[in-house]
Every structure is written in structure tokens, then in C-alpha cells.
């Protein structure tokens, strides 16, 4: 179960799908006070266990990728579990089957090498001081993948905005008809 986030809802309709990256050391499970988030034997981090989850939302705050979602009316956290009902019987996850441009791809490494010869898979991400290794890979340009050992996600936050010139309308340039009136 994935969800869509709006990039800038006021300005555009662009959305990004948020799929779970299935970390090697899942932060959501680390912070869960109810011991409800478990990873199955094949490395898939599952949704919270129904009898344990207290819907506190710690995982929502902690996950660097913003994956878990709390459903307060049902008192449960649910997240992308790689469509466990499908992948466990050898089918691809629903998002990968419906994605028209195959931006979300589920398959073998040989297949993706054929499909994206210019890109290399990367699964190390840097969030400030936290390095995260994931089971889900993102495709990055091949020359970058060989040069940088990880994808520095939060580096974009430190970028200075490009300087631009802003001209405001000056007030005194026009005649103010109320200037003489005492309030």
C-alpha cells in the first residue's frame, strides 16, 4: 500500500508515489514503543501488527522517507509492504504493474540492467548523520554512482537559493490623497 504526496499542491498537480524502501535497519521499527513493526524473513518491513499498534505515530515522525501513515479511525499504522500478498506468490507489487513509464520497477537485476543501461542501482542514503541502507534500490546515473558512495538526501536542504532581483513598488512615488488627514 503506497500513497501519493503532492510536490507543491498550490502550484501544480504533480505527485510523487511514496514506496517503502525496506531498510536494513528500519527506523520505524527502532522507534516503535509497542514493538509492533516487524520485518519478515525475506527483508520486507511489514505494516504494524494489529493487536500491538497503539497508533502513536512515532514511526510517521521517525521514518526519513515519510512512508508510514497512521489511520486514526482504525487505530493502526499501515505502510507499503511491497504488496506482500502478491510478491509472496511471485507476482509483482501493484504499483510496479500499473506504472505506465516503469518508473517503479520490480524485477531482477539483469532485467533492470537491460532496461536502464545508463543507470546503476544505489541503496545507501545519507540523512544528516544517519546512513541508511535499503533493500529497495533507486537508479542513479552511472557516473555519479561510481563517484559518490551514497545519495545525500538532505543536501538539497542546504542549497542556497539562487539570487534574484526583486523590485518592489515604492510608496512615495504616487500621490497619497489621505496623507494630510489626521486619524
Amino acid at each position, binding site marked *: 500500500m503506497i500513497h501519493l504526496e503532492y510536490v507543491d499542491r498550490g502550484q501544480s498537480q504533480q505527485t510523487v508515489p511514496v514506496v517503502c524502501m525496506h531498510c536494513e535497519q528500519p527506523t520505524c521499527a527502532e522507534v516503535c514503543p509497542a514493538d509492533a513493526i516487524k520485518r519478515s*524473513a525475506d527483508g520486507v518491513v511489514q505494516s504494524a501488527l494489529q493487536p500491538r499498534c497503539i497508533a502513536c505515530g512515532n514511526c510517521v515522525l521517525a521514518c526519513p522517507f515519510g512512508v508510514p501513515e497512521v489511520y486514526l479511525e482504525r487505530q493502526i499504522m499501515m505502510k507499503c509492504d511491497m504488496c506482500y500478498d502478491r510478491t509472496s506468490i511471485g*507476482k509483482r507489487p501493484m504499483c510496479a504493474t500499473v506504472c505506465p513509464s516503469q518508473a517503479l520497477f520490480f524485477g531482477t537485476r539483469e532485467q533492470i540492467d537491460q532496461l536502464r543501461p545508463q543507470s546503476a542501482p544505489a541503496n545507501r542514503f545519507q540523512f544528516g548523520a544517519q546512513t541508511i541502507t535499503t533493500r529497495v534500490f533507486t537508479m542513479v546515473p552511472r557516473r555519479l554512482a561510481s563517484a559518490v558512495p551514497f545519495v545525500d538526501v538532505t543536501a538539497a536542504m542546504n542549497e542556497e537559493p539562487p539570487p534574484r532581483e526583486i523590485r518592489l513598488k515604492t510608496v512615495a512615488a504616487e500621490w497619497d490623497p489621505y496623507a494630510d488627514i489626521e486619524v
Partner: protein
Amino acid sequence: MAQDPRSAIDPQINTPGREGLTGTAPVNLYARPPNREQVTIAPDGKPMEMQPPWRRDFPIDALQDQYVERRDFMKFLVLTSGAFTTGQLWLAVQNWWRRRRGRPETRRIASVAELPPGEAQLFAYPGEHDACIVARLPDGELVAYRQKCTHLSCAVIPRIEDGTLHCPCHEGVFDLRTGRPLAGPPRRPLPRIALDVRGDDVFATDVEWRTS
């Protein structure tokens, strides 16, 4: 070193007709990790022996979470049966103590003249705060019970015309003639007060604690 399950991918999976369209992973593609102790790696990368104890108690991997060690199971068995045994011993000690105290003192609680058939009275027996109820049935028989409901200790109210004692808290009903529960949540009968009628005086002589 556990074998990387990715290396177990069947190269035949990419054969014409199967490539990338429908299921690419057979059911048994991902091998189960051989040792559950090696599955979880803490974020600092140090071995499990150097981790705080809570990391062992609350493992992230389902494989380890569902596993019950023989030692833990034995601890559970010993502690649970120990608790049951202690409870039985405690009951035995309570019984012995009650028997050792003997019967409570005989005390006059009412007079027959004040209790025409169909009437009930309150009294305290054997202690000052042990509220009891004495009632005279329409056929003239005298019965007395503790007033505490055996469910959650509310005070029961006699309904002599119905032949019952009624507990208003949870609609419990007791038989007035025997004190046994008839309806509602109480499962045990009310403790009966043994009565002795000497002339016009009614004496309480004993409390009969009953369990069924």
C-alpha cells in the same frame, strides 16, 4: 556468512515470454535466513552481544520475535505453576485460620414478634460492619444471609413476595429460601447465617460460608 539470497535468482527467469511482465519471483526465491541470531543488525553495526538488553527482548525481525526459547518457556511454566501453587497454599492457610478462630459468638438479633411473615430486618453479624439481612417467609420460616452480593459486594434487597433477593447493581437474583443464585452475574450463594429461635428471641449462631 549467510548466503546472499539475490545470488539464488534463477537465471532462467528472464526467458522469453516471462520477462518483466508477470510474476518474476518464484515462491521459494527468497531463502530463509539460516540463523535467526544473524538476521538483525543494529544501526551501529556492532554485534548483538554488545547491544543493550532491550534489543534482544524486542527484536525487529519476525523470525526472532515469534521464536520462544526453551528457557523462556520453562520460566513461564515454573512461574505460572508456582503462582497457582502459592494461591492454593494461601487458600489452605486461610481455611485453617478460619477454623482455628472457631464459631463467632451467639448473639440476639431480633425478636419473632417484630418479624411477621413477609417482613425483613437488617442486622450486623458477627462484626459491626458485616451487614446481614433476616427475613420471614410467608409460610413462617426464618432465613438470614449476609447482605453482600457475591458478585461485586453490593447490598442485596429482599423481595419477599417474589421469594428472591435482588441485587440492583447488575440485576443479580438470589433465591430467598436457599440463598443460591438464580439469575444475573453472581455464581456463588450468599453466606447463610445459622439462626436459633428460643422463645421470642432470634439468635444468630454461625456464618455458613458456601462456595456452591
